[in-house]
């Protein structure tokens, strides 16, 4: 059957506003989580790479817990587990906290690997010029290691966006939850899931395309490795 013929285009006009509201929430949560994951990754990745006492060990435990448990379980824990000990979070809060923590853990590893890949001789050149440890990090390790970490951290950000769809389980009305609700009412399954898939495709495609541009502009020649 031809999908284009089967597709009822009035689906979009009738449910457009609602879907856009869902999309807006998806983008909102994603933006917060990407910013948060970037920050967590930067700080904890640096702490791991430079073996900062205590922080490094705590970060290692954090990364292991998050990487080795399903994100669905983490969401359930935040939403259903925490109230048991008196911490009740809004669905919105759970939504951005969950993906931020998840993305931060993966990004910690991305940045750690990037920073560790910076040849020591570049840091030494910084020290020799009179840079302290922090100045060397900011001017040598971060710009070089950050570039090395860029492709893998971008994959993490893309996963963060896609993982926001799991907020369906706590009924946070982001894009997927909204679409499933519409589907339940209209039973227009083809229209619902096609729209949903295409929307995610466009978001992620746009992300990776714009990031490829950034990546090219920041690219280091291979002799920097």
């Amino acid at each position, binding site marked *: 059957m031809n999908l284009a013929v089967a597709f009822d285009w009035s689906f979009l006009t009738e449910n457009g506003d609602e879907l856009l509201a869902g999309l807006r929430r998806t983008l909102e949560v994603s933006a917060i989580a990407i910013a948060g994951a970037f920050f967590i990754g930067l700080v904890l990745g640096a702490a791991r790479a430079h073996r900062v006492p205590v922080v490094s060990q705590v970060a290692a435990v954090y990364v292991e817990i998050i990487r080795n448990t399903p994100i669905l379980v983490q969401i359930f824990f935040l939403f259903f587990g925490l109230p048991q000990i008196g911490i009740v979070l809004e669905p919105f809060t759970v939504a951005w906290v969950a993906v931020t923590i998840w993305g931060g853990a993966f990004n910690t590893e991305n940045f750690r690997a990037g920073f560790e890949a910076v040849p020591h*001789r*570049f840091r*030494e050149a910084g*020290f*020799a010029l*009179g840079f302290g440890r922090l*100045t060397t990090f900011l*001017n040598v390790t971060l*710009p070089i290691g950050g570039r090395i970490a860029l492709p893998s951290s971008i994959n993490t950000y893309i996963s963060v966006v896609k993982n926001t769809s799991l907020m369906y389980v706590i009924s946070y009305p982001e894009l997927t939850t909204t679409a499933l609700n519409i589907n339940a009412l209209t039973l227009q399954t083809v229209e619902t899931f096609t729209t949903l898939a295409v929307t995610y495709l466009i978001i992620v495609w746009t992300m990776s395309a714009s990031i490829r541009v950034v990546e090219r502009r920041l690219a280091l020649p291979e002799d*920097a490795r």
Partner: protein
Amino acid sequence: MRYATFMAIPFRSTTEPPEGTGHAPERQPLDLREAVSFDPTCEVSVATTPVEAGTMVRLEGVRKSFGDNLVLDGVDLSVDPGEVLVIIGPSGSGKSTLLRCVNLLEPIQAGRILLEGEEITRKGVNVSAIRQRIGIVFQQFNLFPQLTALDNLTLAARRIRKIPRREAEARAHELLASVGLKEKAHQHPHQLSGGQQQRVAIARALMMEPHVMLFDEVTSALDPELVGEVLVVMRNLARDGMTMLIVTHEMQFAKEVGDRVVFMDGGRIVEEGPPRDVLDNPKEERTQQFLRRTQLSHTLEELTIDEEGGSE
């Protein structure tokens, strides 16, 4: 290529003292009028480093080991201001480590190192301030790959000394011109040849107005045809009166530019003296052996390989 003078560009007008320095370098501002002399054979104007009484660098009983491996075994050495000291020796003899210890890149286990009379290996010393007085150039150039040649030069000046970008770039342009790379200011390291990168690295070290320069086998990673352009820059620097400690395998350069040659082996100084003595008429058997091997004064036919893999 024309080389302007390296040190004729006073620079510290607004910036004294450097960041966080407990011991601001005691250094007279450069005054060309009193220190200029011209060598008719040289296209470079020559200014001597402001000279203070006493030695520039002094090592006293320096011992350094990596684990069980003793790399420096009680080294005593002193270098006068304006002196060019060339350190030669087989690999593993500790010569690179010696330079790295002087720049505090490696901690030492015993002895002490003095810079301009100040003990720099004592506890609580401001390492960053000390390192700004010591320039080092590495075998692998170690230019920051993400920055242009110009930014490689200005980064430390801007970040540590807080020199305004404009002022820093003006001086960087002059230094790049002085190493013959005026046109390459906006190129990234990977766009430059090894020889050009190494000259940028020298200019970068000079940017911090070091009182002494350390060269750690700076031509060893270069194609043979690019060695000369780096050595010329170093020669000019020596003529300008810079105090230099040079680890090299370029014996001809050592002879022409060095004021004194030190031969090291097994973490000790085996022999030292004027280049002509050490390189042409070495007294020690070990020095003679080393020079025979490096200079191939014998034809290859006469050389054999001993059981340890050394050639004789």
